[in-house]
């Protein structure tokens, strides 16, 4: 019997075969992968995981593929740093930074979901992959498609800054700039996904794609010597990451790999695009779509597909979903860089700033463990911090001039 039972509607629970479909034909609810946990139980163990590859594929028994992994063989298993400096500053003895800003191959958490999506796409017989993206997802799909010999289409809004596109073009995908606003691009991509036999990673392959996020929870628990942390802080874009981190801890507990999971899964949004945090704060599960206006572009999803489910999980686990301003995001980036030597992009700034906000709200008790997820690399969004990091000392090429600035530095 296969470990994959099929796809199941998150709303009406209708069941479907594990094909490239993503919406329930009855109620239009989203589909997700259902597993035969009895089968997985007979295959998985801590020892087997520990002897597995040094990548996310060490958790292959809990990922929705049926054969040998073919894409992203070096993805995942990123460092989890026990923070000393930032932890001390914030008064947290057990603060851990899960650093996906050094993920392979494209320095973001998206490498996880794309590794799973493209491996599954190959299993399902696709030769073309596609996505709609303004940054990290495009990078990852383009790079992985190049290595795995897929034809690749990336759709972007035509007004996207040219710098963002360069990082994609180098992998030689077909980059299609769509004249129109974000709504137009969304609509077109949805239509293309229905029209062409392509693996659109975050549309018709989404049930498989999103499962890759669970590996962040798996790696976290393994790094903590097979325990779930007391708290995690997760950035929210579509909301999928938060729901899958929850699912990851639940699955590990269900299979007896960890026990006593009481993890509070806090969400982080940028105030300029915070439909999930706003709904959470007014104690509603109704999300009002917004037009994004924030420097945290990689989290700027105005109508998040999984926002409703993220709120439900936050409520169920007694967690908090907060939002932070653009200046707070910049401060968050600097706080992490200056204290831990980790340069994150704006999404990481959102997460660190939210962590600080939760500290100030007294959310964390002494002795509790807190894991903060850093999902992207600062080199990709350098322009956002340029005004806030100052400039180099300028001196004459003589010792006196150098000593002069040293004196200034001492003061």
């Amino acid at each position, binding site marked *: 019997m296969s470990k994959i039972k099929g796809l199941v509607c998150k*709303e009406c629970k209708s069941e479907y075969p594990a094909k490239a479909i993503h*919406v329930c034909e009855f109620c239009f609810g989203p589909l997700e992968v259902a597993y035969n946990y009895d089968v997985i139980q007979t295959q998985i163990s801590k020892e087997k995981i520990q002897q597995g590859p040094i990548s996310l594929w060490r958790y292959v028994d809990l990922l929705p593929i049926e054969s040998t992994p073919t894409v992203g063989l070096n993805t995942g298993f990123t460092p989890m740093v026990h923070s000393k400096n930032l932890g001390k500053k914030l008064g947290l003895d057990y603060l851990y930074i899960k650093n996906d800003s050094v993920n392979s191959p494209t320095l973001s958490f998206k490498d996880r979901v794309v590794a799973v999506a493209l491996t599954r796409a190959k299993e399902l017989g696709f030769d073309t992959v596609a996505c*709609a993206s303004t940054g*990290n997802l495009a990078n990852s799909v383009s790079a992985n498609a190049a290595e795995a010999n897929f034809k690749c289409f990336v759709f972007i809004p035509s007004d996207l800054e040219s710098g963002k596109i360069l990082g994609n073009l180098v992998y030689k995908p077909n980059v299609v700039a769509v004249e129109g606003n974000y709504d137009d691009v969304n*609509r077109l991509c*949805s239509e293309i996904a229905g029209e062409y036999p392509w693996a659109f990673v975050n549309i018709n392959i989404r049930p498989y794609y999103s499962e890759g996020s669970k590996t962040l929870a798996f790696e976290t628990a393994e790094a903590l010597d097979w325990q779930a942390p007391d708290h995690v802080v997760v950035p929210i874009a579509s909301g999928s990451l938060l729901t899958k981190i929850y699912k990851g801890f639940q699955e590990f507990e269900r299979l007896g790999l960890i026990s006593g999971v009481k993890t509070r899964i806090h969400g982080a949004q940028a105030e300029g695009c915070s439909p999930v945090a706003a709904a959470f704060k007014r104690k509603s599960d*109704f999300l009002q*779509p917004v037009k994004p206006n924030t420097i945290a572009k990689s989290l700027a*999803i105005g109508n998040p597909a999984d926002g409703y489910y993220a709120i439900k999980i936050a409520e169920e686990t007694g967690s908090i979903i907060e939002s932070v301003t653009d200046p707070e995001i910049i401060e968050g980036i600097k706080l992490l860089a200056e204290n831990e030597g980790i340069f994150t992009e704006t999404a990481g700034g959102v997460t660190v700033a939210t962590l600080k906000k939760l500290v100030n709200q007294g959310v964390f008790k002494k002795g509790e463990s807190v894991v903060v997820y850093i999902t992207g690399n600062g080199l990709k969004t350098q322009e956002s911090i340029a005004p806030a990091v100052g400039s180099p000392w300028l001196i004459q090429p003589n010792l006196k001039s150098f000593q002069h600035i040293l004196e200034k530095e001492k003061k």
Partner: protein
Amino acid sequence: MANLKIRITFPEDKIKEPIIYNAGKNYKVVTNIRRADVTEKTGWVDLELEGEIEEIDKAVSGMKAAGVIVNPIEGDVIE
């Protein structure tokens, strides 16, 4: 014939308006509601529009012009 799965979201000031009825009346599309959550103040409806693609486009534009938010059923897919 084409079909399009969409979610329409009602702001508070539009909640009383027969947006879906009007779409079916003013354009040659069949509207088929599958799931909804509507209160006296706000709400969303997931529905399918079936018809010629030009008529579907007109219906979507008409609904937007009437003041509701129209999105593909997948939500935003630009990540």
